[in-house]
């Protein structure tokens, strides 16, 4: 694994506009950075990252199966009581999942370590699936990437195949907070994949979901029987419509049982159930009296996004941290991982699972030790 400079395409702006990538520089700050590239060997991809993702995917299924009927564990994860049955039923029914992303710290030498598990609403998908693939294709074509270069990336095909497998033939609704450009772009991409898989689709703002006292409808009065929502479960559950009987009349993607894995408490439960697993870091609930002390740790809210309210603590005190609005539900402490440094930045590798198969990777890097929504996306290749 290495990072090296790469010549940016002079016509990148045209390319981004042509393929509908609208958030390359949100707020004027660079997000997509093709002035550098990460290079991996096939062995690193196949025998370290892909295997780690597969293994943790299996472990996470086992964890849900243990937790979903365990009231003590559900309480530990701060999942509200009023949705326990909804979650349990969705697991028993085998409600399908579309995708998820494991974020690894990895230096190319030691086993990848799971830093975060984005089980419910992962983003950076379009840039992982399409933008960096086109960068690879054009790079080979234009000669700035070697002819045999490859990429850990079958996301696009697998997403379409997964939609086909989920199937059903009914109208499929897509909802997010439309005011956010990145969310809107990610949703549009997933909607496009679903349409390529044969679905009729309709996207709407989450606030445009209507309720008639019995079930959910879109503003055109079409029943919402299947809904992909890029809107976290913990917010759904807290919203007033999340308490209505209509929650049982819609099939959601991601399904309700995914909230067990999107809670950062799952990192502590994974460690408890698979202690010393080579791809896990020691992690404990902060208020667990039996937890051994960690000298250096990341303090993470049970529910938070994009690095908000995460603090890194060492023996000499708080090393760094991020502000935010999260943390009311409690915290976990995860042993700090020594992120590798390349040219002054720290990469985090987001490995995607679509359905049940490893499907690709996106690399984000940051000069700070906490990856946030301002961290840059850098394309990768296998060479």
């Amino acid at each position, binding site marked *: 694994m290495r990072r090296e400079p790469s010549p940016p395409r002079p016509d990148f702006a045209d390319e981004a506009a042509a393929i*509908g990538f609208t958030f390359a520089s949100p707020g004027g700050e660079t997000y997509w950075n093709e002035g550098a590239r990460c290079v991996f060997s096939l062995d690193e991809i196949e025998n370290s990252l892909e295997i780690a993702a597969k293994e943790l995917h299996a472990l996470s299924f086992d964890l849900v199966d243990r937790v979903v009927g365990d009231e003590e564990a559900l309480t530990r994860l701060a999942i509200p009581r009023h949705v326990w049955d909804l979650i349990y039923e969705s697991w028993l029914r085998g409600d399908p999942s579309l995708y998820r992303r494991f974020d690894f710290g990895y230096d190319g030498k030691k086993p990848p370590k799971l830093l975060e598990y984005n089980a419910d609403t992962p983003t950076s998908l379009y840039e992982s699936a399409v933008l960096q693939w086109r960068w690879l294709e054009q790079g080979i074509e234009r000669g700035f990437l070697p002819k045999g270069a490859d990429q850990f990336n079958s996301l696009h095909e697998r997403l379409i195949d997964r939609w086909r497998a989920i199937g059903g033939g009914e109208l499929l609704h897509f909802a997010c907070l439309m005011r956010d450009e990145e969310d809107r772009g990610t949703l549009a991409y997933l909607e496009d994949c679903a349409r390529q898989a044969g679905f009729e689709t309709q996207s*709407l703002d989450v606030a445009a979901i*209507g*309720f008639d006292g019995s*079930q959910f409808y879109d503003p055109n009065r079409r029943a919402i029987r299947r809904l992909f929502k890029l809107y976290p479960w913990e917010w759904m559950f807290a919203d007033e419509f999340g308490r209505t009987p209509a929650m049982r009349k819609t099939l959601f993607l991601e399904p309700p049982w995914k909230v067990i894995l999107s809670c950062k408490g799952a990192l502590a439960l994974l460690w408890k159930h698979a202690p010393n697993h080579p791809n896990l870091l020691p992690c404990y609930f902060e208020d667990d009296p039996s937890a051994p002390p960690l000298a250096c740790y990341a303090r993470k809210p049970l529910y938070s996004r994009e690095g908000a309210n995460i603090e890194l603590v060492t023996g000499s005190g708080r090393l760094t941290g991020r502000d935010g609005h999260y943390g009311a539900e409690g915290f976990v402490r995860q042993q700090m991982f020594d992120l590798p440094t390349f040219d002054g930045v720290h990469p985090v590798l987001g490995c995607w699972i679509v359905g049940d198969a490893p499907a690709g990777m996106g690399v984000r890097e940051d000069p700070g030790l906490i990856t946030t929504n301002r961290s840059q996306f850098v394309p990768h290749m296998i060479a």
Partner: protein
Amino acid sequence: MSEHERVFGVRQQLPKSGALSPPPPILHAPDGFGDDPPPRKRSWAVSVGVAGLLLLGAHEISSWRRCAQADPARPEATPANYCYAYSARYGWGGSPAGARSLSFGGFGHAALGHGGGG
């Protein structure tokens, strides 16, 4: 062909020029919820439910389980239909679809940022 290509196959159907196929227009709530953080607004159904709970001295609107347990007249209320027991007692549901006007803005209140990411 590399090992990776052999395992994953060749790519297909990547968005071509124009990228995303044009979907139907995005729907917004009639009163504009979602353009900005939505104001807190209680649907009539919730208002009825809250009023009903207050009147009956129940303590926790969030628990359909409690609703069912508190209703010995409805022994058929199993975990799968707690919510219907709740509906029948406090006024949610039970009407033919389409018979009532729609309430909007019941999702989006709890957002603390953008919904994507992890």
